[in-house]
C-alpha cells in the first residue's frame, strides 16, 4: 500500500548520490535538500546529470551509492510505484486508450478510492488545470498544451508528496511555454506541492523557481535563489550559463584590474596589488559610446565586430585592442532611439564598477559553490 502524504509533506533529502561508473560518473552529488512546498528548478546543459538525478528520485535509475529520503523515509530501495511521487514527462505520456478523465483517475483507481470520491478528485484536478469540460475527450483530440495540462492533473490528482517534472514545457512552442509557465507557478502556489522541475532553459528556471540548482558534470555548482544565481554566480560556469557573461581574468595593479591589457576599476574589493581575480560583466550592463559622445575616462576602447537585432535588444560584438571580444546587449528603448554603432565603428565600452561580478580571487580562494 502506498502511504498518502499528510498535508505539508514533501521534504526531500538527497545524500551522496552517485550514479554511473568509476571514471564515467553521470551523477556525483554531495547532497541536496529540497524544502517542502518549494519550487526547485534543476538547471543545466545536456549531459549534466539533471535527468539522471530526477530518475533516481523517481526510482527509474538505481544509484550506485547514496540515499534518497522523502519525509523521513528512506526510499532508495523502493520501486517507483511505492514512493508516493508524481511525475510529468516531456512528451506528456498520456494513455492514448483512455479518456482524459480515465487518465486522471488512473492513479486514484489504484488507490481504490470510492467512485464518488474518485470522480470528485478528477473534477477537482481538471478544474485546477482549467480543463473542466474535457473529461470525455481522448488525448489525441487535444493540443500539446492541453495534453500537458492533463498530465499535470493526472499527477496531482493523487496528491503526491513531491511532483517531479522532466522538461515538461520543452515540447511546446515559445508562446505557449510562456503561458504555461505562468499557470504552472500559479497552480503550485495554490496547492503548495513541492515541485522539482528539470530544464535546460535558464529563463524558465529563473522565472518559475524559489530556488535554482545549477548542475554541471554530475555536480551541483550552485544552489540559490534566482537572484543569487544570476547576480552572484559562484563559478565561471554558472556565470556563463545563466545570462551570458563576459569573463575576464586579471591581476590587480595600481588600484585597477589589468586583464590582458584592459584596465578597469574592479569595484569595491579587498584586493592587494598582485592578487589575481576572475570577474564577469553581464552584456546588458555594458554601455557603448562613440568617441564624440565622450566618456569620463572610464571604459575600454574597441571596434564593433557585428551587431544583430533581436527584437527587444541589439547584440553587439566588440573587438578589443588585445584581441578579446566583449558581448554587449544594447536595449532597444523605443521607436525614436538610435541604433547602436554599426560594424567597424570605434566605440568605448564602459560599465558601472558595481556591476562587476567577482568569481574568483587570489590563489586558492573559495570556489563559491552553494552561494
Amino acid at each position: 500500500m502506498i502511504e498518502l502524504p499528510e498535508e505539508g509533506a514533501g521534504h526531500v533529502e538527497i545524500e551522496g548520490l552517485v550514479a554511473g561508473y568509476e571514471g564515467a560518473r553521470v551523477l556525483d552529488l554531495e547532497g541536496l535538500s529540497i524544502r517542502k512546498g518549494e519550487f526547485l528548478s534543476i538547471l543545466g546543459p545536456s549531459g549534466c546529470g539533471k535527468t539522471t538525478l530526477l530518475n533516481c528520485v523517481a526510482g527509474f535509475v538505481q544509484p550506485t551509492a547514496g540515499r534518497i529520503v522523502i519525509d523521513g523515509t528512506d526510499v532508495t530501495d523502493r520501486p517507483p510505484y511505492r514512493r508516493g511521487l508524481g511525475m510529468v514527462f516531456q512528451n506528456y505520456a498520456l494513455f492514448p486508450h483512455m479518456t482524459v478523465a480515465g487518465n486522471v483517475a488512473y492513479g486514484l483507481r489504484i488507490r481504490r478510492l470510492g467512485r464518488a470520491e474518485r470522480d470528485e478528485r478528477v473534477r477537482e484536478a481538471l478544474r485546477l488545470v482549467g480543463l473542466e469540460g474535457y473529461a470525455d475527450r481522448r488525448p489525441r483530440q487535444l493540443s500539446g498544451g492541453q495534453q500537458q495540462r492533463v498530465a499535470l492533473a493526472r499527477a496531482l490528482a493523487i496528491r503526491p508528496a513531491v511532483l517531479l517534472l522532466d522538461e515538461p514545457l520543452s515540447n511546446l512552442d515559445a508562446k505557449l511555454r510562456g503561458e504555461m509557465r505562468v499557470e504552472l507557478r500559479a497552480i503550485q502556489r495554490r496547492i503548495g506541492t513541492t515541485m522539482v522541475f528539470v530544464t535546460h532553459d535558464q529563463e524558465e528556471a529563473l522565472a518559475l523557481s524559489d530556488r535554482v540548482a545549477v548542475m554541471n558534470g554530475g555536480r551541483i555548482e550552485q544552489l540559490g535563489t534566482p537572484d543569487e544565481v544570476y547576480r552572484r554566480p559562484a563559478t565561471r560556469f554558472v556565470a556563463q550559463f545563466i545570462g551570458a557573461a563576459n569573463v575576464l581574468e586579471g591581476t590587480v595593479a595600481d588600484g585597477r584590474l589589468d586583464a590582458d591589457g584592459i584596465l578597469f576599476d574592479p569595484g569595491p574589493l579587498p584586493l592587494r596589488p598582485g592578487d589575481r581575480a576572475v570577474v564577469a560583466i553581464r552584456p546588458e550592463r555594458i554601455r557603448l559610446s562613440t568617441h564624440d559622445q565622450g566618456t569620463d575616462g572610464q571604459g575600454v576602447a574597441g571596434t564593433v565586430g557585428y551587431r544583430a537585432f533581436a527584437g527587444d535588444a541589439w547584440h553587439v560584438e566588440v573587438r578589443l585592442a588585445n584581441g578579446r571580444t566583449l558581448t554587449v546587449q544594447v536595449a532597444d528603448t523605443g521607436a525614436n532611439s538610435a541604433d547602436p554603432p554599426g560594424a567597424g565603428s570605434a566605440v568605448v565600452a564602459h560599465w558601472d564598477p558595481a556591476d562587476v561580478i567577482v568569481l574568483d580571487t587570489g590563489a586558492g580562494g573559495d570556489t563559491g559553490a552553494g552561494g
Partner: protein
Amino acid sequence: MTPTRRWAGLAYVAPLVVFLAALFLVPLVELFRLSFSPVDTYNAALPGFTLNQYKRVFTEPYFYGSLLETLATALLVATLCVVLAYPAAYVLARRSAGAMRTLLFVIVISPLLTSVVVRTYGWVVLLSGNGVVNRLLVATGLRDQPARLLTSYPSVVIAVTHVLLPFAIIPLTTALGGLDHNLHRASQTLGAGPVRTFLRVTVPLSLPGVVTGALIVFALAMGIYITPLLVGGVTQPLAGIRVYDQVETVFNYPVAAALSFALLALTLLSTTLLAGAFRIWERRLHG
C-alpha cells in the same frame, strides 16, 4: 508527375504485373473453370459446365466437414500462437538494440529460413514412438508404453502452432517495441506495479499487433497442409489435406479445384469478418 514519367513508371511495374498475371491469375482462373467441369468414371475432367463439384463439396461430409474442422483448427492455432508469442515478443521488444537483441531476433526468424518440411520433420522425429518425448514419458514412469503422439490431432495443432509462431512474434514485437517507454513510467509513478502496468497499459496498447499476428496466422493456418500431413497423416480432417488427397490418390481435379475455391472463399470471408470484429472492438476500447 509529367505524363512521360507516369508511363515510365508503368514500364517498370509492367514486368511484375505480367509475371503475376501470367503465372498467378491465369492458372487461378483456369482452376476456377476446372471446378465447374464434370468428370467421367475415371475422374478425368470432361468439357462442359456443372455445379456438381460444388454440390459435392457442400453436401458431402467428407468435404464440408473438413472445411469446418479447418476453420476451428485455424482459430485454435491463431489463439495459441498469440498467447505463446506474447512473452517472446515482450522480451524481444524490451531488449535495446545490440548483439543480444539481434541474436534473439535471428532465433525467432530462423525457423522461417528452413523449409517447412524440415521443420515439420523435426516434430515427426520428436513425437515418434522412439522419440525424445516418448522416451521421457516412459523414463519418468508417466506411461509404461510409448504413447501414440503422431497422427493425433493435438500433435498436429502443436506442430502447426510451432511452424506459424514466427508470424505472430514479429508483428507483436513491432507493436510492443513501438510503445512509448514513458507510458510505463507514468503508470508506475501513479502507483501501478509491473503486473498492473502490463495489464492496464501494455496489453491494451499492443492490441493492434496482436490482431495483425492473429489474422496472419489464421489465414496461413487455413491453407496449411504439409505440416498436418507429415505429422498427422493423410487422415487428418483438414481441407488442405483433402485437396491434396483428391489430386494425388483419386485423381479428381475438378472436385479438388472446387474444394480449393470453397476453402479460399471461406478464408477470405472469415478473415474479413474477424478483421472487422477486431476493428470494432479496438474502436470501443480506444475511442
